[in-house]
């Protein structure tokens, strides 16, 4: 059976949900082998086995994580050379896309990024991408070399399946040329205790209309078990950190439910959330373009409405 490489996204061995989604997609195409970079493979092994990884290729050299992407791309190219996989699947985050880009040039193979679905096809896997701020969907495939596909979070429902998860240590040699952009400091992000923005089933976002007070947005998000996001206007005003920005220049989310509070809905924002399944908006301006997108909208004061809605949700859940 064709071997499918899946680059594991993890934090010290804690496997992120995107990896279980990628393993699920990989099983549609062939037999998944997980590629694990860095330390913590023992901790990750169970999770990878549970989602059908037959093998785990362990690439563990300090330079793989001390430098930006180039060494990882080099190691992956060596692995592709050795194993001749049918497809390489990589998480579609900035780092993943850059590894994919460098790998693509190294092995002269086509790359497709920000993919939201992958299905087997006669001439290799067929991907679906959502483009132009979600205005179009595009079906594409790689026409040269080993397909390299970066897949966005929430592109598949993770389905458990037993895998042997046999660990194979793969020696890699990293050239000096790849060891040039050194990560000199890494400050782990403070954990909010909320779901990861790009993985969350529900996202509640605040914009200019919050006036800088995110308390009601956060409280409503917590009542629903949701992640919190922010518009560019809110981030530019310094009200919420950049890593929570949703839109063209921030994160793209595609949750089951997206709630926009005090966000007008400019094209730049829509690009980051338009493919959400259900969209709700609360805004005091009845003319705000966000209302063109919504399944349900409330015109009114967002703080009053979200605070009352939070109480109502808590009451119903009690």
């Amino acid at each position, binding site marked *: 059976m064709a071997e499918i490489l899946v680059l594991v996204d993890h934090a010290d061995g804690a496997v992120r949900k995107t990896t279980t989604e990628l393993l699920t997609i990989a099983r549609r195409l062939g037999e998944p082998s997980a590629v694990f970079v860095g330390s913590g493979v023992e901790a990750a092994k169970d999770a990878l086995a549970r989602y059908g990884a037959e093998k785990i290729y362990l690439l563990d050299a300090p330079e793989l994580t001390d430098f*930006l992407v*180039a060494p990882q791309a080099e190691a992956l190219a060596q692995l592709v050379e050795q194993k001749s996989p049918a497809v390489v699947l990589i998480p579609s985050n900035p780092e993943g896309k850059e590894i*994919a*880009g460098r790998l693509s040039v190294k092995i002269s193979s086509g790359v497709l990024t920000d993919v939201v679905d992958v299905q087997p096809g006669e001439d290799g896997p067929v991907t679906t991408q959502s483009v132009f701020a979600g205005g179009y969907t595009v079906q594409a495939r790689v026409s040269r070399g080993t397909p390299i596909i970066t897949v966005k979070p929430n592109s598949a429902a993770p389905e458990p399946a037993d895998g042997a998860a046999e660990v194979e240590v793969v020696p890699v040699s990293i050239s000096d040329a790849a060891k040039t*952009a050194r990560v000199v400091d*890494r400050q782990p992000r403070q954990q909010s205790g909320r779901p990861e923005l790009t993985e969350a089933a529900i996202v509640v976002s605040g914009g200019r209309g919050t006036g800088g007070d995110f308390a009601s947005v956060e409280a409503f998000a917590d009542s629903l078990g949701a992640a919190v996001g922010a518009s560019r206007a809110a981030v530019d005003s310094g009200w919420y950190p950049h890593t929570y920005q949703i839109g063209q220049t921030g994160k793209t989310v595609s949750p089951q439910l997206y709630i926009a509070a005090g966000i007008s809905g400019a094209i730049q924002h829509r690009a980051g959330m338009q493919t959400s399944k259900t*969209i709700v908006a609360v805004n005091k301006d009845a003319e705000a373009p966000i*209302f*063109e997108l919504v399944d349900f909208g409330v015109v009114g004061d967002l703080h009053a409405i979200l605070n009352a809605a939070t109480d109502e949700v808590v009451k*119903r859940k009690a």
Partner: protein
Amino acid sequence: MNIVVCVKHVPDATGDRTFSDADMTVDRAGVDGLLSELDEYAVEEALTIAQASGGEVTVLTVGPEQAANAVRKSLQMGADKGAHVLDDAIHGSDAAATSLLLAKAVQKIGVPDLVVCGMASTDGAMGLVPAMLAERLGLPQVTYVVDVEVDGKTVRARRDSDLAAETVEATAPLVLSVTDMCNEPRYPSFKGIMAAKKKPVETWSLADLDVSPDEVGLAAAWTKVDSFTARPPRTAGTIVTDEDDGAVKLVEFLAGQKFV
């Protein structure tokens, strides 16, 4: 520091962007275009660094005739000279071919201390070209940065990943890509607009770059679009005006959809 900034002319996101029915490439002829907004941050960062360190900024683009507008806008902002790779055979090129053309053009200009790019284009938006360009030039990449400091040949930058805030250090020459958090792009001044008219812009064909036509364009692309579909417009939703019952109606809607 001498700097090359790579910019792209893209269809205006506020207009109706679409694909050409004939060959499923992005329609660049039938729509208004402009300098990609995300590249304005790259131009601004290049100008700031060049002004502080002393050096020249060359703006580089690959694209059809109209792409000259993206070069002109960058020159109006303050870049010193321009280069435009223009050839009918380029139509339909993917990221692999685009990065090849940019790499060849950067080499023709003379590899500078910094190659600066925006984090992604606002049309294709794949964000692949900076990494592919770095790979082709054999240079380090410092990408998605939110803050940059240059000290001699050392570049120190901060970037935000999902899990951590990272500080990255590298020695020029290198490829830098900047996010919209990096700076506030300047508007061209009247003086800048007038001065831009006298700035030199070179136009290069594939032959000038020693690239064969069968290395670029749609036929040479490493990926292939099979079909495209406009997303069906969302059906009009229910909008209520809050009269002290908005919250309850909202939660009832959420409960009806099984979110509560």
